[in-house]
């Protein structure tokens, strides 16, 4: 997925001279996860810019660049460190178009690695997407595979709306099915691991049905897409699995059609549960599909605690928790 993200930058920087990247350690070094490796060499120090350690300054200056006709792609080194930039994102980036009636806007994409599973403890594991999806004026994406990552990132960079773009770091190097004891696998053998070289987009605002099924619908995104696939298999159910991909705006239609068909729905994510993005998924689905529901919609999520270092795999919604969740939804009613 790292190569896919790098390639999205590369393609866009090649096509569009206004695309610039900025962030901590992204230039000479190529990023702590190497997502921008080689780009400074290719496009120069004025387009791939190492930044001071000030997330608020990165977003604030990116907005200014955006207003001046550039298309900045800002990297926040870990999603856990996005909060110092929160005011500029909420009060400025998300509101500029509205308050100036489109006379000013800043087409900034904010990329940031999120999620746990790399023994990062509470300050390198968070999934804060749910606080961005509540902010009017900013789009929110979380990717689950290299093909989408490239296509969605290109779409985000091209979009004139600001986008917060979450990249689950646990799957940077390969899909993860939620079993930490299994040896890690690379993207090479995954159907979505193959990434076309040139330009293509995956549209913002469209969910994808990862697996067709009739027993129940599992609505998820990011790393948990892979866990859900494994869990459904293990549980022996014919699940329809939906990868939300763009969290805001939400593709309600795809969800509605699926749950109206299956009558059962499990929502899963890695972030903490209370008031998380899953709450909106439940609320939206129950509104749209109430009369078709044969069982309560269930949530499997991270617990409502910080992400603990030693209990990473007790915190993470592992396969077994998904399996239990599936059973619960299947057995109810």
């Amino acid at each position, binding site marked *: 997925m790292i190569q896919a993200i790098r390639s999205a930058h590369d393609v866009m920087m090649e096509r569009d001279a206004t695309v610039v990247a900025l962030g901590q350690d992204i230039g000479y070094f190529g990023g702590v996860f190497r997502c921008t490796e080689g780009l400074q060499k290719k496009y120069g120090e*004025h387009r791939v810019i190492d930044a001071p350690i*000030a997330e608020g300054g990165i977003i604030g200056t990116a907005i200014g660049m955006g207003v001046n*006709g*550039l298309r900045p792609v800002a990297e926040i080194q870990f999603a856990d460190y996005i909060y110092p930039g929160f005011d500029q994102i909420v009060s400025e980036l998300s509101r500029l178009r509205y*308050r100036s009636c489109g006379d000013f806007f800043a087409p900034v994409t904010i990329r940031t690695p999120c999620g746990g599973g790399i023994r990062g403890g509470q300050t390198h594991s968070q999934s804060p997407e749910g606080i961005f999806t509540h902010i009017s004026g900013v789009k929110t994406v979380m990717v689950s595979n290299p093909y989408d990552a490239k296509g969605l990132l290109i779409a985000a960079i091209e979009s004139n709306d600001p986008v917060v773009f979450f990249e689950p770091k646990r799957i940077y190097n390969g899909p993860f099915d939620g079993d930490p004891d299994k040896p890690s696998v690379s993207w090479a053998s995954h159907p979505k691991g193959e990434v076309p070289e040139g330009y293509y987009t995956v549209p913002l605002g469209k969910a994808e049905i990862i697996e067709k099924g009739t027993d129940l619908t599992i609505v998820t995104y990011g790393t948990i897409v892979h866990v859900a696939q494994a869990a459904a298999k293990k549980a022996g159910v014919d699940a329809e699995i939906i990868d939300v991909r763009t969290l805001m705006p939400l593709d309600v239609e795809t969800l509605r059609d699926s749950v109206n068909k299956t009558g059962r729905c499990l929502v899963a994510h890695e972030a903490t549960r209370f008031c998380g993005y899953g709450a909106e998924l439940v609320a939206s689905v129950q509104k749209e599909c109430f009369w078709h529901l044969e069982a309560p919609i269930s949530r499997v999520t991270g617990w409502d605690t910080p992400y603990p270092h030693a209990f990473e795999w007790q915190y993470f919604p592992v396969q077994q928790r998904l399996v239990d969740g599936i059973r619960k939804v299947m057995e109810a009613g």
Partner: protein
Amino acid sequence: MTKNPKLHIPQPTARPGDPPDFSYIDLSEAGAIDRPPTDAAVRDIEYLATGLVRVLDDDHEAKGPWAPDLDPETLLKALEIMVLTRAYDDRMLRIQRQGKISFYIQALGEEAVSVGPGLAFEDGDMMFPAYRNQGLYILRNTGLVDMMCQCLSNTRDMCKGRQMPIFYHNREKNVFSISGNLTTQFPQAVGWAMGAAIKGDDHIAASWIGDGSTAEADFHHALTFAAVYNAPVVLNVTNNQWAISTFQGFAGGERQSFASRGPGYGMPGIRVDGNDLLATYAVSRWAAERARSGGGPTLIEFVTYRGGAHSTSDDPTRYRPKDEWKAFPLGDPIERLIGHLEQLGQWSRSQQESLEVKMKEKVSAAWKEAITFGTMTDPPFLDVELMFEDVFEETPQHLKEQRDKLLAMRGGRS
């Protein structure tokens, strides 16, 4: 310095009932401060951060190396804009008191902090103002009618009813949209300037914040990024002595000038008489030249005084002497410019009177026109659908549904 490490609480020199006391403001004589070349090294010009650059002396003569080369027409134009700004403020304040607009902020006493610098920049330079820089919009030919319609949230409102009064913007004239969130424009201006440098064009950016606003994080972001990348930007602090009820000591002004932050970050800091139009112009011009020629950022502190209330929601008689402004040692910027023009033989009191009448009439005419586009209470009204537009470039489905729901409830399109 107390010997007991108790918490120090900054104290203004005067509270309601006390005689005003501005002895804390360090003054310099007009003409006393050297004007270095625009490519001077920061370490060699630290004196600019603690002195006070002044051009006009007590006899209204322009003195010393900072005296700018401005022809009388330009000075008269500056005067006109300042008088117009004040007339506009005066009218809008009264209109707010009549309940016809919901809120207003005047710039009384600080007009030279917008107009002097404004004249120093080129049209293609981008301005990132604070809410008390209406003078910049007026200087850059934003129509009074447009500004009034913004305050009225009426059918001609540039903000389509979305913003409180005074949150103007002017894309065409390169004046940015004002934010309600203090200081956010400061790093944005730096980013804009970085963008200009990246694109290789010659434009520079300028931004304004207040003394109180320097305490916000974005002040630091702006100075850090500007210093690191040597961004072509001019960062202005309008030190009008007060935030809302707290004086400038609550932002650190008791200990050091705000201009002194500049050298601390590695850029020039210049402290300037903010009520001396010639000085505000001259210093801005210096900083603009420095930025445009690759010399990087400058931090400027304009020493001035907030002549009126913070806003129409505020009552300054609760926290400062009523007559403080009258005692302010740097006077009234309009009076001082009139004095200078008189001294040059270019202006007279009677000309001034007729200018004021003319500006008042201009404002009145604009108001008459503005209200034809509606007020908060009188039609025509803005279309409520506008609420749902411009959240994104294209309105997404859920917002369309919300819009339709609202329209249905109201019995169709309003």
